[in-house]
């Protein structure tokens, strides 16, 4: 974790309501898939707290990109940035996706704003010789992000939309094949819950990237907690919660209750 003055290199509009902010860092930044950054998203009173974003495409260690949906004053501020503008950032933060360390068949599920962390994960898994199936969900065809970028990393991509305007109409988990070794998921709570259920009911091991309202992002505010599935009795009442920003954002399916 460090503080960086990122400089906007390029601002792209990959889908309706989505922005990809490609930034240049003053030096190489090492990141693990699933880690995130806190970005300062404006100087006005409505954007006081920084906002958490997982990193997206990185071809170059001196570049880092963020893919997000514009939905409030913070993301609107970031969306309005132009090449050359500064983005103060703290990161990389949190515990990312654990990698199997051997070739496996992995299924990656990303719904909506949950797609970005899957790019780095797909790349890392492919580098270890794994087969990667990416299941990408969106409200509709116009809101779909990440499909081409994931394919470029060698992932097989299947798409589901809520309205059926492209791909399968229905929940992403319907597209899961039976023969995968490990599941990785990031996206809406309902989807994460289904992946957790599948895994805990004797399915493949699963890792869930969680989101939570967050103030600091580096572990001091205790704002972003989620319940531990099996609290350590030695910690007493204190063991009830864990921080999404430090102990997460990625948790094994059996580690969290939400």
């Amino acid at each position: 974790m460090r503080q960086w003055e990122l400089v906007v290199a390029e601002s792209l509009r990959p889908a309706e309501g989505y922005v990809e902010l490609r930034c240049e860092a003053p030096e190489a930044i090492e990141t693990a898939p699933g880690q995130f950054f806190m970005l300062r998203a404006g100087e006005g009173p409505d954007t006081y707290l920084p906002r958490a974003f997982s990193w997206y495409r990185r071809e170059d260690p001196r570049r880092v990109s963020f893919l997000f949906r514009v939905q409030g004053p913070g993301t609107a501020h970031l969306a309005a940035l132009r090449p050359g503008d500064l983005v103060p950032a703290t990161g990389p933060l949190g515990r990312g996706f654990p990698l199997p360390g051997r070739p496996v068949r992995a299924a990656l599920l990303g719904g909506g704003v949950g797609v970005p962390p899957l790019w780095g994960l797909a790349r890392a898994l492919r580098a270890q010789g794994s087969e990667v199936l990416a299941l990408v969900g969106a409200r509709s065809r116009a809101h779909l992000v990440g499909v081409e970028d994931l394919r470029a990393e060698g992932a097989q991509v299947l798409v589901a939309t809520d309205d059926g305007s492209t791909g399968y109409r229905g929940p992403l988990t319907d597209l899961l094949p039976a023969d995968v070794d490990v599941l990785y998921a990031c996206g809406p709570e309902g989807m994460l819950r289904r992946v957790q259920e599948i895994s805990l009911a004797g399915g493949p091991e699963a890792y869930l990237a969680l989101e939570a309202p967050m103030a600091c992002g580096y572990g001091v505010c205790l704002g972003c907690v989620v319940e531990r599935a099996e609290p350590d009795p030695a910690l007493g009442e204190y063991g009830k919660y864990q921080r999404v920003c430090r102990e997460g954002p990625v948790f094994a399916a059996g580690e969290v209750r939400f």
Partner: protein
Amino acid sequence: MIDLSASFAGLSLKNPVLTASGTFGYGREAAELYDLSLLGGVMVKGVSREPWSGNAPARVARAPGGMLNAIGLQNPGLTHFLEVDLPFLRRYEMAVVVNVVGHDVEGFVDVVRGVTGAPGVAAIELNISCPNVKDGLLFSQDPQSARRLVEAARQATDLPLIVKVSPNVTDPVELGLACREGGADALSAINTLVGIAIDPARRAPVLGNRTGGLSGPAVKPVGLRIVYDLAAQVGLPVVGMGGIETGRDALEYILAGARAIAVGTAVFRDPYAPPRIVRELEAELERYGFDSAAQAWAAANPQAREAVS
């Protein structure tokens, strides 16, 4: 060379910049970023006798010019603090101020007694002003029960005793006077202001605790007012806090009567805020023609100061 040191109430700080309780944990995370010895001290996250779980999420919400929180004093308890957290903090050359919380007088006193005599504790801050736990404001709402709690704590320790008073009362000065009567050495102010955030989609409050505490730049004028009144009318040294983001803010608090200041919510936006504010305060003191932080403090209201020093 500006002299930043601050001495009051039995505390000796190399500079007047502390970190506010509940925004800094026990220093471990910030220590990954910078040397904690750059700070005057750390007011640690509230410590209770037993471990506390804190409130159900959601615990934070956005607010104009700041934020609302309802953490609920989640902490690992006295034993963990003494065995794990305090030894870590002692590695740094700065003052460790232990923020103490409890559900009742006995709960407070047991922690006060437990940290008294532990090597490396510079002072105790009695937290009678957390709005986010049941009974959190119990001792703030009635000056006489505040006095009795401070008396009981006073009997349990010879460490400097700072009482963190609430802004959520009709008259903070009356509360401060009661704490002084009970034997407090200093006051700290302000804690957060009780507020609420509503989520129209859920037609319900955003926070799991329903209400939360407002902090950040939005509360600075309230903090300055209360510190000003406490410093002038109670006759105890005051540690000022509430919306401090810059060295300029710190100087304003000192000129309002604070002997030291604490940086809180600012560390969420800028993790490096505390050491930055030390540097900026030095520059601001120079800019306004002061040789020392103590001189700035004394210059603001010499008459009120005589009673203290």
